[in-house]
């Protein structure tokens, strides 16, 4: 699978990672190499094989419906780059 600059731009956009134009050519090459390498899986016949859901053989645990957490808004925003009046603050979102 070969990845071009446009594809790099598209997935970088999906991943919200700024990729400078100057890097995208090199990145396209690297990603193509890696994808080409992992593509060897396609030679393996996996017809009828169940995809692995988890390596642990156990049931999903369930917890009781009780309020056991929260109530510490200062901790929630303690590490925020920007907070105001108990909220996180981000550049204005226009919907």
């Amino acid at each position, binding site marked *: 699978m070969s990845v071009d600059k446009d594809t790099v731009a598209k997935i970088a956009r999906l991943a919200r990672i700024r990729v400078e134009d100057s890097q995208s050519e090199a990145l396209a090459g690297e990603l193509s190499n890696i994808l080409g390498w992992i593509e060897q899986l396609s030679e393996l016949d996996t017809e009828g094989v169940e995809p692995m859901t*988890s390596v642990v053989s156990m049931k999903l645990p369930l917890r*009781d419906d009780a309020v056991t957490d929260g109530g*510490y*808004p200062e901790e*929630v925003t303690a590490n925020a780059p920007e907070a*105001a009046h*108990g*909220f996180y603050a981000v550049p*204005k979102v226009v919907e």
Partner: protein
Amino acid sequence: MALIEGKTGAWEMVIGLEVHAQVISKAKLFSGASTAFGAEPNSQVSLVDAAMPGMLPVLNRHSVEQAVRTGLGLNAKINLTSVFERKNYFYADLPQGYQISQYLHPIVGEGTIILDLEDGETREVGIERLHLEQDAGKSIHDQHPSQSYIDLNRSGVTLMEIVSKPDMRSAEEAGAYLRKLRTILRYLGTCDGNMDEGSMRADVNLSMRRPGEPFGTRTETKNVNSIRFVQQAIEAEARRQVEVLEEGGEIVQETRLFDGMTGKSRSMRSKEEAHDYRYFPDPDLLPLELDPAWIEEIKASLPELPDAKKSRFMSGFGLPAYDAGVLVADREIAAFFETVAEGRDPKLAANWVTGEFFGALNKSGIELADTPVDAKKLGGLLDLIADGTISGRIAKEVFEAMWESGEDASAIVEAKGLKQISDSSEIEGLVDDIIANNPKQVEQFKGGNEKVLGWFVGQVMKATQGKANPGLVNQVLRQKLG
């Protein structure tokens, strides 16, 4: 089926609804933070809800039970294995950068809802699926000129997304669907159904077609937060699509946003293009496996649901479909009615509950739970009617007094001396006086004017302040005038 007449002929709406219903639970879907409404910003947020590094989700058993209850209430298939997947996208109020949802393997499969239409008819709408997912936080855009504020109190609250089949054909049906769904959820106690608080939100999928033709391309109008708005959004979008189609245009499959203020919707296509949700099973969770015995236990604990209750009211109480439908629309009202009707004439009880009682509730704007006249008291009033202590007319007066004071009917009747006069000698005396004093009217009656009888009845009632037994008055009058 309501058709829309376009310039080029009739069009039919094809409507499917996706409802997001907030599950009633104390704590969130994957964290132990509270779900209570209206707290200080970020005060009901755990480290998990804020997506702090290294935090992990643990599933709330009650949320699962609520989904199963709802599935059973919708006569739907409960899937013994379901899978939580991550829906990946970036947004300010989505702290993890993904929403934990169910995608390929929802907890509940196909089911049905029976709509009760205005004319008393019913219509079946299919349920496609129900799945569990996390709610997002809240963005507040109007507090700062260049910033949005984020509150994560709702982040992680359990939602059920209930997806209908495209079985509805009019805005009225969509309204009936939402009302019925809300009734069922409230009966089950799985969602409070308060659309104005956002605990129930609807996305509308709509396409137009010529009757009998295959489905057309649909649009999705998001986050419509009242039944009235849903109906408005449907009407507006249907007209828009008909216009586009009749001008030879094509409907673009897109997401639209409804504005309740203007009653219009606009395209969100620009945002849509960038979306590729990259669903994959959440590796922090294992597949959810349900024990069939648990499902049976939940099934056994279900209350009588509105459809069953309605048929019982119809067959057991002989109520007409419309009355029965009105009474079962609210579980508390149905229970109230049953208490009133217990050991009494059910039709009389139904008339009083849906008539005077509903009227008083609406007029005073109070909730059933706070009514000054509870079911026992209303029953007491009906007993006085039944045993002839008061007439139906006096009963209305007594009811008003009960509503004012909260006192028992018998106490009011006693205190105000409203007891019906059923003593025939007393009535005969009154009738004799009236006949003696009104020869002209007697002449008229004798001359064949039956209407004058009503005038005589009125005179007796006037003289007794309405307390005379109307049957007895009629009988005595006919006898004396005859």
